[in-house]
């Protein structure tokens, strides 16, 4: 497991370094937006990946309520944690970019509002966990909050698609025209996306393992208690 971790971390390091090299040295400066545009190479993958956890949470929380096995709860919990981290970073990097470009740190644009709501939903999920003491009640409540929260995120996202927005169009992804971008830019986007995707996957796996380990320690402790109790009574 340690070796796996090291390989994974090594890969992330290589990808991150190449992404940074591409972003700051290879990629040409944007004609309209200037140097500040370079933050997009970090901001866009962060923002796109922030939208993945609600999907994971919806599926794993439903599975937890049906199956009641703690591993689904652990996976839902860690996706929310990583989701919160990514949403925070997306909001911060976006804000840094908005200041020189739009002249303000924040604007009540639908896309921005969506992310802020998503951020609140993630925090609510983590709060209900910390305010509920009994482990199975905690898992049940957070699964319910997780399911409704992800539906809510979806609703807000769809609504923001309908609203007018000043948020820049998504020039990457399947919707964008193929030849719209310089090959260096395309490579930069691709590499930084891969780097951040690896980081995303790694942190979720890492946290899930951690939560599962905590669960296991809990049940082992129960078993030890059980044994001690039995021995001391007989």
């Amino acid at each position, binding site marked *: 497991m340690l070796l796996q971790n090291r390989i994974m971390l090594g890969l992330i390091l290589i990808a991150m370094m190449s992404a940074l090299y591409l972003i700051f040295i290879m990629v040409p400066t944007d004609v309209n937006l200037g140097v500040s545009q370079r933050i997009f190479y970090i901001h866009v993958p962060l923002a796109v990946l922030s939208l993945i956890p609600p999907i994971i949470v919806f599926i794993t929380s439903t599975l937890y309520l049906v199956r009641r096995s703690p591993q689904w709860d652990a996976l839902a919990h860690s996706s929310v944690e990583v989701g919160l981290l990514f949403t925070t970073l997306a909001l911060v990097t976006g804000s840094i970019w908005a200041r020189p470009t739009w002249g303000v740190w924040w604007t009540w644009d639908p896309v921005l509002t969506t992310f802020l709501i998503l951020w609140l939903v993630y925090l609510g999920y983590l709060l209900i966990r910390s305010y509920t003491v009994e482990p199975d009640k905690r898992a049940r409540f957070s699964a*319910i909050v997780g399911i*409704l929260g992800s539906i809510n995120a979806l609703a807000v996202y769809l609504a923001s698609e309908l609203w007018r927005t000043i948020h820049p169009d998504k020039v990457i992804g399947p919707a964008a025209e193929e030849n719209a971008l310089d090959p260096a830019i395309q490579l930069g986007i691709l590499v930084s996306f891969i780097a951040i995707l690896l980081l995303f996957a790694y942190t979720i796996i890492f946290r899930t393992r951690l939560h599962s380990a905590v669960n296991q320690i809990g049940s082992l402790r129960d078993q030890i208690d059980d044994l001690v109790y039995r021995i001391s009574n007989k």
Partner: protein
Amino acid sequence: MKTYLTQVWDISYKDIRLEMRTRQMAVSVLVIVIALMIVTNLAIPKSVDATFTTTATVIWLCILIASFMVVMRNFVIEYDQIGFHGLIMCPVPRDAIYLGKVVSNLIFLLVIESILFPLSSILFDVPLLTPTVTAITGMATIGIVAAGTLFAAISVNTKAREIMLPVLFFPAVIPIVLAAVDATQNALNPSYGAKILEDIGVLAALSLAIIATSAILFNFAVDE
């Protein structure tokens, strides 16, 4: 089916009778909501163009706060007077308990709204008592109450019920409240026309989705 509906009504009727006995909740919610209306109204600058927007915003802010207080109060009374086990021991499906609570919360809110709307109609000098605004209010209130009832059932079971409910409830109802504000200001605008029916349809669909999901999830929320 008939017994199911009777059970739902028995539970809501009990909540309503309990409230009629003291009328504490209705009075306190009204005091707070009217105070809130005064504060927001004084804080928002007056301009002729923005009247509809201001009115819609203030009204929905008031309804949001009122519904938060109503759903919380209703569950706290249940919890403090007999504890939730008192209903769980009865031969009633869990979702009937949920729907019973939704119906009583809804009736409480409709009563509060029936005071709030004529009042703001006078205070803001905006014709609020039209069929479209009524339809919008009804549809959106159902969704808000449906979400609030589920979250209240969860929150009363945690260590910090008074903090947990707003933390879960407010972000969850943002979409429907935004849609309601939007629809209300459109309805007030005479030039908007028949497109308002679409807005009402969206609200109805949202509410229906919330109430269906919440009724299913409630089964897990009280599962001890």
